């Protein structure tokens, strides 16, 4: 993915939103598959289950989304096979950051923004913000892309510590309303997934 390509600017159009609840992490992305000014699909899934308790939501270059996403997923699987246990969310987030950082100065830039949501037995739910310049932050609520401009005020105002899944979903719905009302780009559908002690679940499938 080359930053010089026009598609570079398109990375910012995709919305990736996340929040941490009482015992789960919820991630949402828009379900558009866009190519310049054309939306090819309205049912595209931009989240990837990295393992049983990790979810990676991505926004940006669609080729990188598949190739890099799977690269991370397979390397996490390799670690688990080699060592008999999976990486913690914290370790996986830092590993992911390192790979993005490596791309920055090696001519293989990864033009993606990420939200990594995970659940660990001891730490509980967690959310990590990672952008295409490899800035990593552990957060409670955050969004990437132009939609973040509309959604951040809502997250700031409505997020509370220890929300139930229903409460988290309500916040996400308010985010969707704001985007659909005020954002220039048409985003008719969103994908919402949750990761908790039992694993990864789809709350709203891409295209619904």
């Amino acid at each position: 993915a080359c930053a010089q390509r026009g598609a570079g600017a398109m990375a910012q159009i995709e919305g990736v939103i996340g929040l941490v609840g009482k015992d789960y992490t919820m991630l949402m992305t828009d379900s558009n598959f866009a190519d310049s000014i054309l939306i090819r699909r309205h049912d595209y899934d931009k989240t990837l289950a990295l393992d049983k308790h990790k979810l990676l939501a991505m926004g940006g270059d669609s080729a990188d989304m598949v190739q890099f996403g799977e690269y991370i997923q397979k390397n996490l699987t390799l670690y688990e096979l080699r060592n008999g246990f999976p990486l913690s969310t914290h370790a996986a987030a830092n590993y992911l950051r390192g790979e993005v950082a490596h791309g920055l100065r090696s001519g293989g830039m990864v033009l993606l923004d990420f939200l990594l949501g995970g659940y660990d037995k001891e730490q509980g739910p967690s959310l990590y913000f990672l952008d295409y310049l490899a800035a990593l932050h552990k957060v409670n609520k955050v969004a990437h892309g132009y939609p973040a401009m509309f959604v951040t005020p809502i997250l700031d105002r409505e997020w509370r510590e220890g929300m139930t899944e229903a409460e988290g979903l309500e916040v996400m719905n308010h985010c969707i309303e704001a985007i659909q009302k005020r954002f220039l780009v048409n985003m008719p559908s969103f994908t919402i997934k949750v990761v908790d002690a039992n694993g990864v679940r789809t709350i709203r499938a891409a295209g619904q």
Partner: protein
Amino acid sequence: ELLEAAMSRRYDSRTTIFSPEGRLYQVEYAMEAISHAGTAVGILSSEGVVLAAEKKITSKLLEPSKSSEKMYMIDEHVACAVAGITADANILINYARQAAQRYQFTYQESMPVEQLVQALCDTKQGYTQYGGLRPFGVSVLYAGWDAQHGYQLYCSDPSGNYGGWMATSIGASTQAAQSIMKQEYKPGEMPLQAALQLAVKVLSKTCDSANLTADKLDIATVTQRNGRVSYAPLPEAETKTLLDAVAEEAASGDA
């Protein structure tokens, strides 16, 4: 028999090939070198891991140095004791330290102990299969803690094999050391102090010199201090206390 021995000699000079009987002579010779080195024992306790070693290099003329030729800290949560060629050991220790920091850099977490052991053993194995270089003449005892398996003790040899142990030894007199530990080690009932006591007892029995003094021993523990796991060498005064206790036990009963 003599002919076979003569024939086998031809297969020694290359480290990375098998002998006709399917042995790796260079690896065996490395282990032979280690069997002349100062004994080191490792004992697993529910409260930590004990490493104790006999220092062979003692001379009044030697500068008392802060560093030991037997004990090394690899990272805050992992330490090791070595037996064999000190110069070889230094290379391996350096490699282990780099491996631990590399892992920390990538994952922002401490390297799990077994993975560290495997990394080192994979390196050692390489020297038995390609490159035409001799194997490392070092056996290593690893003592560490991680969130996955708690306190652990591992032992590796020049072949690159390793095993997890409750109590084990490397260097000279390992047979004697193992038999004592086999009798006296009580799985699940070894608090740190008992492990320390047993380690000193084993060394005093297997050691060359008639009277073992505290300055000839190197003891260290990996245990929890101030809420975190750390490695710390035992002060000489405490070593002396342990030695005295062992001597007393020997004198009082038929130990």
